[in-house]
């Protein structure tokens, strides 16, 4: 039992240690708002990483999420500027994102293509479509969007959460429920544990595989919507490289890249760790932004090596 929770424990301990380091090192670090900001500033990353968790649990990967976010922001901005009802626009981009993901999933499942390649091409396609809409940044001045962007939910202690942050937390909660207690979620774990065996058990492997990419696409477009709240613009170059951050968050969150083992809660902490690295670097003030990348790379290495150790010690499956 403990073995299963080991990677998650490492992640949480790491987060607490980093927070403790920040609290000792910097004044004003240990406030509720600083920690809420980790969620607020990384709300879209969190949502995308949750979708990515399911993909990785199933043994796949989705490189298209960053581009889908950008495309979502572009389509949202264009529709809003054309006078659409903001909620109708949101519904449209959500359906678009889900359909985009489902199409990728279909290609992967039906033609047995490598997920890495299909979603790579999907990434090209989504970015390219952004440029087809416009190469310029499109500002959003829709009243509802601005209101949502500025809304704050007070939580006491002089702290507050944005709508985007709230959505991210809700997504995490829903995803934990799906992963733990739904037929779909358990089939995702089963596929990650062994696709052939899962198929022979009579589990609905095919539809679940497509569903995983559909979910990831939907999460990416929801993340895109949250990002437009945050940025109030649509731009082709939004979220460049976000897929890497999302994968890093999932891996640092303790999910095995080989699939089958991991927790959505771990991904939340993975996102928080990425966020706290940036916050620590910002508080320090002397370190440059590129240290973020280097530290994230180092953490990725650390966790991948840990995973190898973990796999090595796990009893051999037949």
């Amino acid at each position, binding site marked *: 039992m403990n073995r299963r929770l080991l990677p998650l424990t490492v992640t949480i301990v790491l987060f607490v240690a980093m927070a403790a380091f920040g609290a000792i090192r910097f004044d004003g670090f240990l406030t509720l708002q600083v920690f809420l900001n980790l969620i607020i500033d990384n709300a879209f990353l969190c949502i995308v990483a949750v979708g990515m968790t399911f993909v990785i649990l199933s043994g796949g*990967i989705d490189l298209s999420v960053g581009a889908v976010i950008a495309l979502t922001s572009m389509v949202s901005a264009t529709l809003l500027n054309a006078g659409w009802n903001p909620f109708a626009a949101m519904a449209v981009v959500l359906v678009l994102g889900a359909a985009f993901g489902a199409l990728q999933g279909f290609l992967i499942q039906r033609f047995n*293509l490598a997920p890495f390649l299909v979603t790579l091409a999907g990434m*090209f*396609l989504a970015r*390219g*479509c952004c440029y087809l809409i416009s190469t310029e940044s499109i500002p959003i001045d829709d009243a509802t969007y601005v209101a949502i962007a500025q809304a704050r939910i007070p939580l006491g202690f002089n702290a507050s959460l944005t709508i985007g942050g709230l959505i991210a937390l809700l997504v995490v909660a829903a995803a934990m429920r799906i992963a733990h207690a739904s037929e779909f979620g358990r089939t995702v774990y089963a596929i990650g544990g062994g696709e052939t065996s899962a198929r022979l058990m009579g589990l609905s492997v095919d539809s679940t595989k497509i569903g995983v990419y559909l979910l990831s696409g939907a999460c990416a477009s929801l993340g895109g919507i949250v990002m437009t709240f945050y940025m109030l613009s649509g731009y082709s170059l939004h979220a460049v490289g976000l897929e890497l951050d999302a994968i890093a968050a999932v891996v640092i969150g303790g999910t095995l*890249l080989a699939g089958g083992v991991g927790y959505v809660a771990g991904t939340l902490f993975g996102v928080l760790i990425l966020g706290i690295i940036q916050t620590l670097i910002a508080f320090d003030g002397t370190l440059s932004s590129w240290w973020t990348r280097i530290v994230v790379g180092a953490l990725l*290495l650390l966790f991948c090596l840990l995973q190898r150790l973990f796999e090595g010690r796990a009893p051999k499956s037949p």
Partner: protein
Amino acid sequence: MKRFLGHALFWPAMALALLLVASALFNPSFVTLTWRDGHLYGSVIDILNRAAPLIVVSLGMTLVIAVRGLDISVGAVVAISAAVVALMIGGGFSATGEVHSDNPLWLALAAALGVAAACGLWNGLLVVKAGMQPIVATLILMVAGRGIAQLLTGGQIITVYYPPFFTLGNGFLLGLPVALWIAGLLWAALHLVLSRTALGLFVRSIGGNPEAARVAGVRSSAITLCVYTFCGLAAGVAGLIVSSNVKSADANNAGQLLELDAILAVTLGGTALTGGRFTLAGTVIGALIIQTLTSMIYSLGVPPEVNLVVKAALVFAVMLLQSAEFRGLVARMVRADKSLDGTRR
């Protein structure tokens, strides 16, 4: 004829030829070659010159893919190599207005290539010794590498003023661009090594069935390490060409998305993504297809960004054509059509 059609390079070469013909139709000046100042000029030469870094990187990627690997860090390694060479040359203007270099040029080039090869070796060690999946192992350097390059350059674009360095990306030798010579020589050298030594057989056996190769006594790990190191080295060479061409090192943008183009070039050339079968000539053709497409889109006046959509369509098409399931589906549909015809008669 059948042998010709069945040749692995037939379809890639055909695609390239079609693209070239289309380019020439849209833009008649495309085919003109002029001789000026002892150099050859023209759109075709331009394409070859611009394709050189991609060809170089793709050749390294071909071997990595052939041993069932993947290297998505090549873009970052290009940036690191460019940063190292720019830093080593450094320098500036002396009192007399003369441009000098902090280190001898050969040392700067060697240092950049050495660092790039070390990056490749690092990837190889993670794959072979730590047993990581190639995507994951190289993802680490992909994320961290650009940060390292930015660290080296201090986040600035470093401009190089030392003219001898510009030869790599802008110079001409015997009428042809130096970059093209580099790519050509690398290809020739690689071809020789693969056909005149056992490396080709080993690479194909490791890619075809790693376990069988191990049982047969092939030193798979040593060869896989070499292949990743070579891929890093190739990315380093590309970094030199790129930075020499633009006379600067831009840690943020040098080699951006190059890993994807390289994988695309390898795939277009007909190398099996599942490992084993590979073709260097196909990869060169694949890289040329990508560059021709880019140039064609530029010359048509379409926003260059549309290129991405076209590339995406290409990847989808090639993937589907390589998929046994897809071919089976098409074959069944064709057969169903025929049998339908039969019943009608």
